[in-house]
């Protein structure tokens, strides 16, 4: 399961700070919701269910954008290196 590194600070407004590198980032609202759900340990299926009730989005489209987003999180090294099953 994908895990966000523990030391990463995430504010309610979507501001992200990585004390390891000193870099800061901003998330858009959907990005913030996904990160918070990942942090709370939700799986892709659970996250999609939550999004599908709230937003006008098909599963295929959501999956595409979800994985594109999480790949970026990995590239930015905001996730645990061995955080996947």
């Amino acid at each position: 399961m994908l895990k966000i590194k523990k030391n990463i600070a995430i504010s309610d407004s979507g501001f992200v700070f990585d004390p390891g590198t000193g870099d800061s980032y901003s998330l858009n609202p959907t990005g913030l919701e996904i990160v918070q759900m990942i942090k709370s340990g939700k799986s892709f299926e659970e996250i999609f269910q939550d999004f599908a009730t709230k937003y006008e989005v098909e599963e295929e489209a959501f999956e595409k954008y979800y994985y594109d987003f999480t790949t970026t999180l990995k590239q930015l090294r905001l996730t645990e290196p061995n955080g996947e099953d």
Partner: protein
Amino acid sequence: MTKLIFERPIIQRINAGLPSKYGMAHKLEPISHIDNVSIKSLMDSYGSPLFIISESTIRKTYKNAFRAFSSRYPKVQFAWSYKTNYLNAVCNVFHQEGSWAEVVSGFEYDKAIANGVPGELIIFNGPDKSRQDLEKAIKNGSLIHIDHFDELYEIISLSKEIEERPKVAIRVNMDTGIYPRWDRFGFNYENGEAWDALNRIMANKKLDLLGLHTHIGTYMMSTDAYKIAATKLASLAVRLEQKHGHVLQYIDMGGGFASKNTLRGAYYPGTDTTPSFDDFAEAITSAFMSSEIKPDNLPLLILENGRALIDDAGYLAGTVLANKRLADGRRATIIDAGVNILFTAFWYEHDIRPVEPVSEQTEDTTIYGPLCMNIDVIRGNVMFPLLKKGDHYVIRRVGAYNNTQWLQFISMRPNVVMIDSKGEPHLIRKNETLETINSQELTPEHLKNFDL
């Protein structure tokens, strides 16, 4: 409960320190309508991508340019630069507004005649005029702007065969302090070639020398260059009168005023840097007024502006085909219009906007066209809203040079519609199809069949 619009999730680095080159990143406001007509509904009817031309913007821009000159100078005439956009509907809007035609080939000349422009109101420019073209132009009483001595002698030779007297001007090139200097067209001012050409025409007596012409460059941002050019042409007019007692009827200052597009690599956007028509008009007319030309002999001032008159009226709308990520993590958005139909993407950082509402979020994006070619980049590195596959975009200020320089390459050239002053759309050029292309081709008998 209605569901919320889903925006794709993104995360981006916040760069502390220097703001972007245009100051704070600004939101790209969507453009959903042109002249109160929905862009989406136009694409539903006419396809995607689609060129959309606003008739009322053409008329408004023309009137503004004409007013800038006619409020400062008694005799002003515009001639529509066909090569900038020679769709007949576009040309005819300019002709209805009072523009003559300015053409640079036999094909453009015939197009102007077919549109109904009287021969004597066609200015024939450029280095490429065949003997047949010249013969036709002389018989029609068109204004022939001579580019080189070979052309001058061709006209002199024709004048012995044809009854009508050729009406001519010479094109003059000169140093106006700008680079690159366009010295490949016409006769040079500084080295005396232009004066020499004028004297040979006067000595010949079979030609009617009516004017002087220059076109100092294109996308000119300097009004000073025009002032210098106008001053130099005025001095030639004065010398002609002093030496030959010959009064010129007109001076044609060409075109070249920058449009409000932003040049690639420019630091400031074109909307901030482009001089107004009033600025250019002031530079040119003040040079004439303060020259030694006698007030009674002030020549007709002709202008041949292209891009500054039509860029704003043209839009290219279309659809997002896909999003992907480049190897370095940057965003790539692929749209359905490529550089083959948007030639000006090579020169400009075009203003590209979403059609549907978007959030405040933007991402550093490179916008690619659909061609399977590496050069097909519509915009590099633009902070762009998060458009999804199927969303629509519209590119502003594409009226100049695209509908004439576009290529049929890999895909077909799309429909062009014009929205009239009442908001009615009209199809003014049909999209090409496989039949259009194949109708021009001939396959030899022995190549008609194959077995695979």
